């Protein structure tokens, strides 16, 4: 017995080592047991809590840098959102413009308005379709609602449009039910109201009639809606007629360009006879 105690005393460190190793290995084996798992989980919770506090504290030192990064990130995200919103609204508008167009308008070229000047004296529209897209001068520009204007200048990728609401614009029109002919023009003032000229006082034209382009136009195909008669007042020889335009120029963003043009031969013979410019 004494020798056993001596042996133990001599090798106590080894015994400790074996005991601790045994306990450690046992703990490793019992790692998944409920009690040990609960201790482990508590330890991890405490660990996470302390780490969070430390992280909060150290975060104070990097606050300025973090803020700058966040601002930068915000700006990046904001610009992305803006761009995506714009693309979405462009796509919607384009889809609406093509789906609302009547069947005969499907062959038209769709163009986006990229610039416009709607001042009291100089109203001009620029679209993003030019000679490359097959646009040429004197083509009719319209929307599914009605006539917008006429192409007067073309570059490779852009075209300038003389809109209906320009004092230099004129187009030959006809009413739908009484077939009254006249010349549509616009003077400075209300952008929704144009005037129909050269209609004699004897004309049977009534308020509410729809006005469309006539066969006599030198650039527009016939039948394009222009507007509706809203007021008729009689003068000595001719009537003063106000036409409410079909197109709302204030919210115009997409247009259709008609590739169809009246016969060149007809235009030449009309110009030769009268010497008048295109209407």
């Amino acid at each position, binding site marked *: 017995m004494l020798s056993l105690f001596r042996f133990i005393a001599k090798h106590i*460190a080894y015994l*400790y*080592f074996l005991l*601790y*190793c045994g306990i450690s290995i046992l*703990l*490793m084996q019992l*790692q998944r047991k409920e009690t*040990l798992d609960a201790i482990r989980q508590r330890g991890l919770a405490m660990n996470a809590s302390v780490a969070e506090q430390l992280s909060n504290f150290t975060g104070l030192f990097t606050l300025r840098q973090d803020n700058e990064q966040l601002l930068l990130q915000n700006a990046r995200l904001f610009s992305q959102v803006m761009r995506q919103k714009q693309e979405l609204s462009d796509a919607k508008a384009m889809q609406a413009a093509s789906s609302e167009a009547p069947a005969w308008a499907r062959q038209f070229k769709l163009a986006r308005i990229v610039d416009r000047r709607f001042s009291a004296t100089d109203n001009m529209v620029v679209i993003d379709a030019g000679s490359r897209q097959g646009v040429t001068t004197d083509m009719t520009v319209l929307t599914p609602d009605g006539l917008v204007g006429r192409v007067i200048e073309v570059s490779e990728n852009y075209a300038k449009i003389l809109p209906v609401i320009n004092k230099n614009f004129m187009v030959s029109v006809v009413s739908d039910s009484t077939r009254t002919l006249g010349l549509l023009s616009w003077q400075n003032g209300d952008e929704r109201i144009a005037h129909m000229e050269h209609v004699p006082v004897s004309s049977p034209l009534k308020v509410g009639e729809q006005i469309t382009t006539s066969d006599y136009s030198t650039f527009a195909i016939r039948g394009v809606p222009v507007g509706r008669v809203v007021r008729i007042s009689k003068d000595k020889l001719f009537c003063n007629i106000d036409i409410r335009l079909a197109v709302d120029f204030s919210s115009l963003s997409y247009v259709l360009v008609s590739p169809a043009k009246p016969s060149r031969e007809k235009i030449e013979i009309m110009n030769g006879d009268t010497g008048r410019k295109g209407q």
Partner: protein
Amino acid sequence: MVMLVLVQHFFISRLVILHASPDLLAVFIAFISISIGQKTGTTYGFAAGLISGFFTGNIGLSALVGTVEGFSAGYFHVPDESHATWVKKRRMYYIAATTALLLGNLLQALLNDPLSLPLYVRLPEMVVIGTIMSMILGALMYKLVLNKLLKD
């Protein structure tokens, strides 16, 4: 010891280079082993491992590693009655710490693989780099605190 575990766990273990970090606890256990003795060093190692494991979630392995570190460093124990010079004590301290670290890191690398690294990556990174980093920390500790305690 609890303070040391907290410092190790929340500060020093974040100094990671190639998956390895310095081990302040191993240096401390080695110091206890050479200055007090193998039995005490082993017990300290086991206790430190248990506390450390409580935070890391791997109680058994941490306790085993601590025990092995304390026990192995205990072979280089310098008894007070040996009247060893401080140069010898210093040499023993470095040898004990290096041995404890090598064995402890080897055990960790073999039994613990949280990053699923292959063994040929784990072994050199944890054993070699971990030991070098810990020894740099051990040298600093020695210069700052431990040499005064050993001389006493």
